[in-house]
């Protein structure tokens, strides 16, 4: 969680939004939880939640003075927040960390046949 000292402007939807979960600004709704790392993930780093974990949604809280609070900041989330304020001092090094990583596809979780709760298409993996 961190204060981003910016007066936000409208965020554009990243071009590489995940087809199964278009951004549609879920990050700007009010809920508790973690960001499903989907949209605008330029590095293929994020292993995301899916609709099988509907309670997992990132939160951004915009305060009346223009401060933006965010938590569970994924690389994709960083890409989005970067558009809000590219010069934010807290965000900048994290953006660099996210973008300096190499692109590599994520592996899906294998099904555990002994465990019916472990899905074959994991909610914790990136397709």
């Amino acid at each position: 969680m961190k204060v981003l000292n910016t007066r936000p402007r409208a965020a554009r939807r990243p071009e590489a939004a995940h087809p199964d979960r278009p951004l549609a600004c879920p990050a700007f709704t009010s809920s508790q939880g973690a960001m499903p790392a989907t949209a605008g993930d330029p590095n293929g780093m994020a292993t995301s939640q899916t609709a099988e974990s509907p309670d997992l949604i990132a939160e951004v809280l915009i305060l009346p003075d223009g401060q933006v609070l965010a938590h569970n900041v994924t690389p994709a989330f960083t890409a989005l927040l970067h558009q809000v304020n590219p010069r934010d001092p807290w965000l900048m090094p994290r953006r660099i960390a996210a973008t300096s990583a190499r692109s590599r596809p994520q592996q899906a979780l294998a099904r555990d046949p002994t465990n019916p709760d472990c899905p074959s298409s994991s909610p914790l993996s990136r397709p």
Partner: protein
Amino acid sequence: MSMPSVACPPGHEPGASATAVDRPDRRTLAAARLTRARAALAACDLCPRRCGANRLAGERGFCGAVARPRVHLAQVEVGDELELIPTFAVALSGCNLRCVFCITGAQSWNPDAGTVVEPAALAGQAEAALAGGARTITILGGEPTIHVPFLLELVAAMPPQATLVLKTNGYGRAAGRRLLDGLFDVWCVDYKFGNDACAWRLAGVPDYTAEVRASLRHAARHAQLIVRHLLMPGHVDCCWRPVAAWLGAHLPDAKVSLKTGFWPGWQVPHCPELRQPLTPNEVARAHALAAKSALKLVA
């Protein structure tokens, strides 16, 4: 990117963190402790509440956790301290505290939130994340130390070269901590409250100060330590001031992460002073107190 250099225990220098823990030994250690850790679940005493629940039989104590934890988050994140990111974060459900300001309380307090995932599967994801540029693997909660047996399995399954980070609220017992010795390169320990009255009122936790200080001292001896404090509105003097003073006096080499983005959410309406964000004056005073105690603040 290399980890910044700070004073820390021999063998745990940040610049050499990727090799600080003897990796094959780490796996062996974890496997060797598993039987003892599982036995602790028969009458759970892993945290100071010592509820005695037989988690192996499905009984639930204060935290509600049973023998096998669920995972409510597993993803690469960049919101943590700069020396740790990008990190592959794995969040286990269930917690032994009830902080009214918890921003992930819906998942963290509910041990049934998320999905049962086998350690090997998480390790596979972690390996892919590392290959994709993640620098560390962070295990968090809820509170991960209420799931020591699973942590041991997870550590044993993780890539041997991985830098492992344990993020804990510090409200644990010595026996549980000893089971985790030598397995994590970095301990991120929350020091949330500066006195037992605030700890009881805001998190319903008894004997907080003594327990968390024991955890902090232990972590400082056995791993790299990052102490986190979430600055709370109205609690600069009662909580941050004594936390900063104690850290400065007793753990002067510890890295301290002062979080100033207090989020007035979850159940804070029950606590009037927490209904608003921090003021700039509170943040400035907090930094002044950190400077006065010569704390090594990290971003």
